């Protein structure tokens, strides 16, 4: 029997009850979330279960939602079951003041560098990671640049007084 999103959802709810929630399918990919304490348990279940077998970690990264108090950082896992060719997206949210999330590096070797990259850019502290240090930025950096508190200049801003460039200002 081919694996369906409905079935995956059912198995997850059977196993974790109401702790897995927020099931939706934006643009045709099953997405759900779980408490961050459960992330490894959910991943392990998805990996081990004879039916589910999500053995391929396609991608792992974070997203910053500064306005969502207590859930500022989302760590997003994209998993793929290659035999059934079905993908899903799994999210855990963490507060930015204590961004500790368990590391999946022992389960998926691929997670090692992906977690380092996520740490580098968002400051997610992957607990249990064998070598959590910056990977693309310099070691001396003391902030996490992909967070929304470091915006780039808006190219379409209008508050500049640069009449020489034909924007804003006043023509006398």
């Amino acid at each position, binding site marked *: 029997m081919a694996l369906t999103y409905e079935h995956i959802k059912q198995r997850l709810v059977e196993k974790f009850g109401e702790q897995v929630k927020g099931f939706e399918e*934006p*643009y045709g*990919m099953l*997405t759900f979330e779980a408490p961050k304490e459960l992330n490894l348990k959910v991943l392990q279940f998805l990996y081990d279960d004879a039916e589910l077998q999500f*053995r*391929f*970690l*396609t*991608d792992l*990264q974070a*997203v*910053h939602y500064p306005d969502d108090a207590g859930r500022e950082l989302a760590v*997003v896992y*994209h998993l793929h079951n*290659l035999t059934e*060719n079905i*993908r899903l*997206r799994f999210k855990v949210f963490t507060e930015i003041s204590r961004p500790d999330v368990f590391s999946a590096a022992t389960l*998926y*070797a*691929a997670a*090692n*560098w*992906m977690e380092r*990259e996520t740490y580098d*850019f968002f400051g997610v502290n992957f607990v249990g990671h064998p070598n959590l240090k*910056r*990977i*693309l*930025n*310099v070691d001396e950096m003391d902030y996490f*640049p*992909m967070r929304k508190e*470091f*915006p*780039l*200049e*808006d*190219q*379409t801003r209008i508050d500049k007084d640069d009449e020489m460039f034909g924007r804003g200002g006043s023509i006398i």
Partner: protein
Amino acid sequence: MSDVIQHSNIRLPEGSIEKQTTTLNLGPTHPATHGVFQNILELDGERIISAEQTVGYIHRAFEKLAERRPLYQITTLTDRLNYCSSPINNMGWHLTCEKLLGVKTPKRVDYLRVIVMELARISDHLICNSIVGVDSGAYTGFLYVMQYRELIYEIYEEICGSRLTTNMGRIGGFERNFTPLAFEKLEKFLKEYPAVLKEFENLFTRNRIFMERTIGAGPIGAERALNYGFTGPNLRAAGVDYDVRVHSPYSSYEDFDFEVPVGSTGDCYDRYLVRNQEMWQSLRIIEQAYQKVQSFKGAEAEVFHADVPEYYLPEKKDVYTKMEALIWHFKIIMGEIDIPKGELYFPVEGGNGELGFYLISDGGRTPYRLHFRRPCFIYYQAYEELTKGAMLSDAIIVMSSLNLIAGELDA
């Protein structure tokens, strides 16, 4: 001898008094690293006992930049990921945008895209394989194939006016129709290339030295490769039949008849063989696609973009002469039209594996978050495991056969 360096991972032979290892920085700028990445190798004689990789030398913050750029302006960023096959990145990005915006492309556009993407795959594999040749001491093959990659670049040039960072895609299709000269050049390429590829194979495939250098170098098993997140030729060389073009077809790949070559041992030689086989398959796909393109008649034969004026840029000559076209051009380029809310992941089969675009839009003019799943970044972390216990000269060849491109590694 008090200052003998003792590393926990070195086991000294019974009875030996001391053994010193050498630390060698291979890179970040070394001809053999084909880009800027550093390998800190710990050598016992010429045998590698540990390796640590450092990347990030050309990190350009693409993901951050993308948060301030409307969709079209991100195209130029994708060009600079894997610059050996930039049209694939381009097309992948525009396919992602089209999925987000719900744009349906005409069949002719799909086929033209397939032609361009497969040409890019050939040029990518060709460079990779000939570099493997260079690193095993055979420079001639590399010099020889350069002129045929040139033919591909000339086709790009005909299509979009640019050669390396092509920027040729548009949301809904291409910037302009392929000129008759582009098709002529494509025909010339299709006619000449098989003989070249055959000759290239003759030069390497059964070459004693090449075989000795590559067989058994940097092997990886299927299970381990999957655990490491390998995709593309590197995964297929390990014996896993996974190709995004087959598993989640995009751009009408389901209309084409082609095989997915797989290897067995996952060593450098298998990776070379898989890439070579793929070039033959790409040629097959291009021929089929070209026939399909030719089968369009009348007005259909002129279609090169979808009819989506709110996303597709107006023609340049109109922009220069008509006010409305100029306004639309401005609105689209500056992102005055908000993009729909949504979250999606779109994978394409890049030159060296699954290139994915994870895009979150909050309904503004720019992506809220854009992440590139870059296959090179994923391969390189397996480098230590692939080279541990091998000789220094193997380290070089493993690196080139993984097809690591610094632009994609660092994003």
